[in-house]
């Protein structure tokens, strides 16, 4: 290199002395995308061998004839020719080399140009992941992608959310997508051993969204079949940031926010006076606002530092992140520390090695959720205002119908600690020009430690003289994937791409759990001090997966595209008879725009038609479900016992989904308007159904391959650049409508009365309809609720139940509008769900008219005397009826962000490359007719059937946040 420069210099001098008109030229080469200088750009005088390269600051100097033309070229950028025209300062900005094939996206085991993809794939880039105060990956993806619905199940910090792609494909087996990080399937889901009902923690929350470069959603079989047996629910490919060859950048992001529960969504409960009137009591002097006692304005903060750097052989990305979020319910908090190192190194010209490691530690301070008698939120809602928080002597008052929530907040310890290591190493070897062999080995390790202590000062602890629980869960997943790829283009018309691969996975988990009681002192919180062990167990589980896969892609002149995919998966989950499953898929695309007859249609900048068909599988069931089993732990008289736990089903096999889809990509006016539209029909057969058995057999269910269901739907993604220039206005709109229908169940038997809302699985209906009694109102003479007697037999019995609601939405949507003027940008993101019903289970208690539970204020207007016309009964009953069904449609102002980017002029003197400050608001307002706290929550987490039911669930908070991003 140095030699070259020297040579050039000498030559320049020599030539310069020959041609007197030569002049000294200098300038800076920057990237058009981020205005950052680019080192190492080749600057050449056209038609000569004369040239130089830019230095670390992107600056070049050379001598050339005043009428020469300079040629600027750099790998990955479009080359530019600039006539000198006697100028001595020539600054150049280079565009990224996009040719006309669009951005490169990561798909299963390979990458592809977006324009050449023939199947249904959606991509979310890092820009879309910025600014959201929710710093977990599922939280930031909500509402962003057509066909991907993220449900925030509760407002619990670090809590588990539900992700569904194109509707739920299964009833009993998993409905969550397969999550792949940098090519390796990762541990996701909830592993907690202490039950928190819908407020489980999620292994995915260990990933820092700032480390993510892009998330690709593979939505149809042609895209997902390469992941075979686990692909029925779609695949989420997360790609983390890589370093840059040559270029260095340092980014510091920090933000701070305040969260509150929106006051307008809190239920209007009775105060003491109303309660006295309602109960006919006369308790004076106390009027406790229990909700106020347990709620707080909760701070949240996020700080991260990342460095992206490299030279021409090595690139690396290092980041560190600290995120903390207090919950709006006092004493809840989530803290997370993550670090990541991604390195790639070109050992030889044709051999690259690299690896990545992510380490994370998090601590989650939790409270018991909704399905318990010791949850602060349900208890605060349910204790009447006439009870004081404290007794006159300063002790907690426990006279109310439920345990004192303030005592729980002050003294109960519920902690979950996770340590996560996720790393991989790879080598990529190119040979014989067209072949690439990649071998990747990864390990994901997840250690969860749970610690609970209820001292004698809280109701639950008092019962046991102190209750302590210690649980540890260790999960590891080892993965190896080995792929041989062949890429060949013949005469720029035939483009082939083929890959074949093998992967193997070994999963193991170990749990220990100890529960003990009788603690001598409230400050001794570990079990070593406990008087007696109530429960102790340890458990181990292993599972393996063996897979072979291949893909063949061909396109003719980038015009006609075909993709064929197949995978064979073997899983230890299934019986020996059906251990392997085979999953083929195919798709075709026609890029109409490339046809010559489209040349005259200038308005259309892209038109691609797509069609796909394929088979995918689902193995998301318990291990060993095919075996007849005896379980241990059925002890009696302190000696061990065993009992039959499971009936055998040796023919148990994969659940398969036949997915067919059609779609088109349309770009208009230079892609100022782009529309991606898809329709699909997914037909699932051999449903892995935990079908109910007559309990008189001694078993209540068995896993069998019985039943069929279908999902069909439409997805639209519309991006527009409404105004360009100094003032820009971009809009993005996504829309998804899915129709789910159960086609076949075992002998038509419904799966009935699931969860507190009475969800039901029934042929001909969508999964999880609400099935119960139709409430006709209140009998004016008796004040009792009247129900429809469907079979007219004179009595209200189980046979009088009918469909009373459907928790599945008609459609969901997200709308983002982004405005920018010079240094100012402003964006508004609306997210909505339409046409679903909610079972307001909270009101079974808060509008019951019976018992000691606190009541909603409107219960004061209940039926009192014969002749009163009202729809509020004197006393409710507990029948799951239409009385509790409400319209669940909502539209949320999910995010509003206002940002300011400081100009280069201001930044240069202080040696900053970029600086941005912003203010952002999350969940600013929710438009809904729902009367409960939050229309989005579901008390039962990710259950496939128990859906749309609110039961004292922790609602999402409203967050106002300020932040600053600095680039050095």
């Amino acid at each position, binding site marked *: 290199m140095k030699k070259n420069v020297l040579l050039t210099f000498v030559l320049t001098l020599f030539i310069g002395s020959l041609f007197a008109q030569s002049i000294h030229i200098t300038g800076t080469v920057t990237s058009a995308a981020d205005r950052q200088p680019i080192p190492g750009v080749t600057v050449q005088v056209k038609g000569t061998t004369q040239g130089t390269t830019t230095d670390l600051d992107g600056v070049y100097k050379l001598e050339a004839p005043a009428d020469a033309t300079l040629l600027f070229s750099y790998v990955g950028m479009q080359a530019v020719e600039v006539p000198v025209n006697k100028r001595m300062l020539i600054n150049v900005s280079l565009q990224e080399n996009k040719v006309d094939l669009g951005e490169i996206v990561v798909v299963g085991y390979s990458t592809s140009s977006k324009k050449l993809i023939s199947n249904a794939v959606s991509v979310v880039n890092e820009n879309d992941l910025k600014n959201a105060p929710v710093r977990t990956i599922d939280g930031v993806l909500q509402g962003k992608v057509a066909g991907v619905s993220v449900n925030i199940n509760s407002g619990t910090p670090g809590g588990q959310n539900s992700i569904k792609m194109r509707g739920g494909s299964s009833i009993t087996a998993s409905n969550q997508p397969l999550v792949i990080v940098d090519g390796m399937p990762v541990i996701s889901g909830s592993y907690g051993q202490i039950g928190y009902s819908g407020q489980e923690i999620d292994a995915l929350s260990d990933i820092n969204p700032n480390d993510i470069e892009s998330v690709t959603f593979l939505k149809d079989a042609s895209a997902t079949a390469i992941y075979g047996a686990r692909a029925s629910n779609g695949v989420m490919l997360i790609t983390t940031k890589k370093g840059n060859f040559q270029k260095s950048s340092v980014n510091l992001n920090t933000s701070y926010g305040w969260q509150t529960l929106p006051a307008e969504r809190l239920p209007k409960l009775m105060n003491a006076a109303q309660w006295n009137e309602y109960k006919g009591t006369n308790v004076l002097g106390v009027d406790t606002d229990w909700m106020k006692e347990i709620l707080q304005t909760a701070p949240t903060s996020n700080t991260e530092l990342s460095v992206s750097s490299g030279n021409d052989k090595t690139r690396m990305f290092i980041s560190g992140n600290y995120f903390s979020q207090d919950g709006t319910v006092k004493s809840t908090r989530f803290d997370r520390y993550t670090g990541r190192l991604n390195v790639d190194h070109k050992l030889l010209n044709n051999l690259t090695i690299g690896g990545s490691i992510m380490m994370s530690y998090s601590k989650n301070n939790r409270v018991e959720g909704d399905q318990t008698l010791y949850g602060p939120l349900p208890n605060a809602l349910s204790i009447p205002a006439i009870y004081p928080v404290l007794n006159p002597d300063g002790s907690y008052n426990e006279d109310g119908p439920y345990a004192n929530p303030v005592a729980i907040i002050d003294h109960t310890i519920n902690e979950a600690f996770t340590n996560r290591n996720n790393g991989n190493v790879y080598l990529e070897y190119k*040979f014989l020009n067209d072949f690439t062999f990649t071998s990747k080995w990864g390990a994901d390790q997840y250690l969860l430690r749970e610690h609970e202590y209820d001292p004698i000062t809280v109701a639950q602890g008092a019962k046991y003289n102190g209750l302590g629980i210690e649980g540890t869960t260790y999960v590891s997943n080892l993965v190896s994937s080995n792929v041989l790829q062949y890429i060949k283009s013949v005469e720029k018309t035939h483009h082939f791409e083929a890959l074949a691969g093998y992967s193997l996975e070994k999963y193991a988990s170990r749990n220990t759990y100890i529960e003990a*009681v009788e603690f001598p002192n409230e400050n001794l919180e570990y079990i070593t001090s406990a008087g007696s062990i109530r429960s102790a167990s340890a458990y181990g589980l292993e599972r393996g997966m*063996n897979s072979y896969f291949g893909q063949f892609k061909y396109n003719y002149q980038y015009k006609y595209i075909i993709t064929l995919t197949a995978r064979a998966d073997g899983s230890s989950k299934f019986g020996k008879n059906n251990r392997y499953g085979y999953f083929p898929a195919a798709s075709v695309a026609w890029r109409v725009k490339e046809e010559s007859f489209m040349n005259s249609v200038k308005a259309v900048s892209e038109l691609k038609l797509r069609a796909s068909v394929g088979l995918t599988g689902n193995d998301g069931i318990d291990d060993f479900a095919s075996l007849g089993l005896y379980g241990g732990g059925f*002890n009696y008289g302190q000696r061990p*016992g*065993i*009992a039959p736990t499971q009936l055998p089903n040796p023919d148990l096999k994969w659940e398969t989904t036949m997915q067919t889809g059609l779609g088109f990509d349309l770009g208009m006016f230079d892609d100022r308007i782009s529309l991606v539209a898809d329709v699909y029909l997914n037909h699932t057969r051999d449903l892995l159904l935990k079908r*109910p058995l007559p309990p008189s057999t001694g078993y209540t269910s068995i896993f069998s391959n019985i039943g069929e269901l279908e999902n069909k739907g439409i997805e639209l993604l519309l991006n527009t650049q409404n105004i360009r220039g100094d003032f820009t206005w971009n809009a993005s709109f996504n829309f998804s409508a899915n129709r789910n229908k159960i086609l076949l169940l075992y002998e038509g038997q419904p799966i009935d009365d699931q969860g507190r809302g009475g969800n039901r699985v029934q042929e001909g209906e969508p999964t999880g309809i609400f099935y119960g009694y139709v409430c006709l109102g209140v009998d004016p003479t008796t004040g009792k609720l009247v129900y429809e007697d469907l079979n007219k037999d004179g009595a209200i*019995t189980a046979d009088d139940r009918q469909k009373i609601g459907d928790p599945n939405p008609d459609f969901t949507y997200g709308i983002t509008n982004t405005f920018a003027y010079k240094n100012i940008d402003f964006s508004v993101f609306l997210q909505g769900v339409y046409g679903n019903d909610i079972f307001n289970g909270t009101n079974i208690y808060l509008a019951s008219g019976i018992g000691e539970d606190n009541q909603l204020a409107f219960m004061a207007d209940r039926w009192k005397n014969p002749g009163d016309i009202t729809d509020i009964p004197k006393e409710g009953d507990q029948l799951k009826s239409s009385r509790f069904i409400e319209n669940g449609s909502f539209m949320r102002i999910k995010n509003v962000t206002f940002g300011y980017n400081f100009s280069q002029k201001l930044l240069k003197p202080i040696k900053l490359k970029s600086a941005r400050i912003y203010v952002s608001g999350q969940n600013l307002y929710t438009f809904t007719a729902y009367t409960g706290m939050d229309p989005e929550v579901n008390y039962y987490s990710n259950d496939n059937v128990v859906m749309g039911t609110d039961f004292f669930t922790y609602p999402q908070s409203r967050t106002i946040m300020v932040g600053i991003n600095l680039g050095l």
Partner: protein
Amino acid sequence: MKKILFLILASAILTTSCNKVLDVEPSASISSDIALKDSSGVESAMRGAYSGLQAVGLYGRNAAIIADLAADNLVWTGTTQDYGNIMNKPIPAENAIADGMWTAAYDVINRVNNILYKLPDIPYGSIAGKNQMQGEALFIRALMQHYLAGFFGGVPLRTQPTLDLSNLELEKSSQTDVYASAISDLETAIDLLSHKTIAGRANSSSAKALLARVYLSQFHATNDAAYATKAMQMSSDLIAFLPGLATKYSNLFDPAIPSTESIFEVIYDKQNFNRLAQYYYSRNLDGRYEIAPSAGLIAAFDTADVRLDVSIRYDEKNNPYGAKYNDVAGGVDRVNVLRLAEMYLIHAEALAYTNGDVAAIQNDINVIRHRAGLPDTEAADIASLKLAIENERRFEFAFEGHRWHDLVRTGRAAEVLGIDQKFTLFPIPLSEMQTNKKMQQNPGY
């Protein structure tokens, strides 16, 4: 050279592929085939069957609550609305508690049926050991059949284990057929079982006592006086054979004092506990107070009756609570299933309903009354003696799971509780109705 190196590396990677990753065996469960292959497996499975009796739907909770709550001994004061439904009839078929009782009882029946099915092929050192296992299994099966028939009337009679997906659906047998099957099981069991007493396990006395109880039920169900005679015989045999009533009534409920009166009880320990005290105790005493003694029961007690203070106490806020189960934290209270006092009252009831000797009936009742610190019964004719027996049972066995069966058995439930006769049977649970086409719902549901 480098290329060769890579080929070696690549082939090494590829050959790591092995089907070994797929050959994984469960480590927390064992396959059914190997579970019951020798006598120690049978012994483990037998303990597993007894542990089934600790289920919430059985003696872990609801066996000692529901018969009192569905009748007039308890009222619902808690938050679990399914208990409210048991109190306020009609009980919906989807009631989770009735469902849990049904499911738990059949789970236990399936556990013992598995043992009975395998037992003939399992080698034993001594025939006595094998007989004991068979006898205990038959006892448990009869106990569960009687439990089910008492609440639900006619139910499916399961005498074979469920081993695969065949014969899943079975129609109900009549209540008298279920009792007949229990009688036959127990008549076999009494000769198989030893006299030896092991805590929490059945012996020959247990089988005889249960047999006396089932005879009495069958007598009322069939009106066949022969069963009354057998009930009398069986109960008087036991009265003669066993050491006698516990001297102090309160000792019966104190886990620290060995019960001399117990004939069969379900035992608990720190890890396998019941939730009775927790459900009975008031909130001020760290309980859940799901149920409380009814005002009617409290009023009916004679204040001199020592059983009153043992059965019902008051917390600092003057809330009455059931006090037979007192270990809120540990839940190791003993749960009496069969005890000698019942034999006296079975004897008396069988006599009374067959117009037997008044003095003999009075004598039976008085044995129980004297222990309770009460004078002789004043009842002197058959009609008032029947009522005296009913009341004595109410006081003696409050919160022990008898009251509902006492009233239903004698046909008095509708009158005493003021409910429709058809609601004296619980509904067949919805989960059974929806999965078993051969099942018929009880009338009125």
